[in-house]
């Protein structure tokens, strides 16, 4: 093989490698489960330690209706929802309702301070990209899921939510029989 032939071969290999790198790094997100496709599926399980140093395990909440809320301190619509969730926790907690809030802040400090100042009556954990991906990718806040007593996702909303509708859905889920 001539020198120019060798050079051409090297160039082709470089182009192929670059092409493969590009394929691996860039995609249209088809591989992530779209959040809506999680409806009526078992909620992805996770376990974290909350801001009060208590372990929070989603699997252990089976038998309860769980409101799973992704939020952040810099998200203005989220700030409007949290006080309502606090009310619902107080009102429906005895019926088997549990709010679980996941802060998507980049660090724990601001979220922890806000949770303490707001005297939130439900666990708050710090989320991360992996947890976001489990739930179809969290690419805008707020995002809320309602999980029934069997652990299935039954309701999903993104952006500014219709809280009246959400409350009706959670009341409906609370009225369903507890399989346990």
């Amino acid at each position: 093989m001539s020198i120019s032939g060798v050079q051409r071969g090297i160039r082709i290999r470089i182009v192929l490698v670059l092409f493969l790198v590009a394929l691996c790094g860039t995609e249209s997100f088809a591989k992530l489960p779209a959040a809506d496709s999680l409806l009526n599926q078992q909620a992805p399980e996770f376990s974290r330690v909350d801001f009060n140093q208590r372990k929070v395990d989603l699997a252990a909440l089976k038998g309860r209706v769980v409101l799973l809320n992704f939020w952040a301190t810099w998200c203005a619509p989220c700030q409007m929802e949290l006080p309502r969730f606090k009310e619902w926790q107080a009102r429906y907690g005895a019926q088997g309702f549990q709010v679980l809030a996941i802060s998507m802040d980049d660090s724990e400090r601001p979220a922890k301070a806000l949770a303490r100042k707001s005297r939130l009556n439900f666990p708050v954990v710090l989320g991360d990209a992996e947890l976001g991906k489990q739930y179809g990718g969290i690419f805008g806040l707020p995002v809320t899921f309602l999980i029934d007593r069997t652990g299935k996702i039954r309701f999903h909303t993104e952006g500014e939510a219709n809280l009246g509708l959400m409350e009706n859905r959670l009341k409906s889920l609370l009225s369903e029989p507890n399989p346990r």
Partner: protein
Amino acid sequence: MEGVKVRFGSVNSGKMAVLAFVLHLAGVSVHALQFSPVAVMSAVDIPQSALIQPQELQSIIAKGTRGGPLILQVGSHVMYVQGHIPGSEYAGPAVQPEGLELLRRRVESLPRNRSIVIYCGCCPWTRCPNMGTAYRFLHEIGFTNVKALYMASNFGADWIAKGYQVEK
């Protein structure tokens, strides 16, 4: 006003104060920006002429021409790690001092006519605390060719759901 610890910028203090007052009437304490000593500017105050639509940016990226804009994500790192616009760089949430400092460091050595596109997509456009703040900062330090990617709802709805390319 209890719970409101936002230091509003002089440009939009009136609008932001009205928003905070309305939220207060609704029984909501605004904590969102309480840790930010940054003067916040709303995204809605970015001039229309400085906006770029997602489809337009996607076309620029698809062409892959040299000398394209520097694309900077000025929002949450957690969201950036999940997925971002191909070739874009994380430049920190502009609403936080650390974020603005990261942005300053990234651009300080660039020529002031460098083409820059900023984007966030953390929240609906009218609620985003980062875009306006980043835009004004770049404008104030002399950048003359800055475009703000307009995403009405968020990065998920206005970029990913449209099938535009995402890098992880």
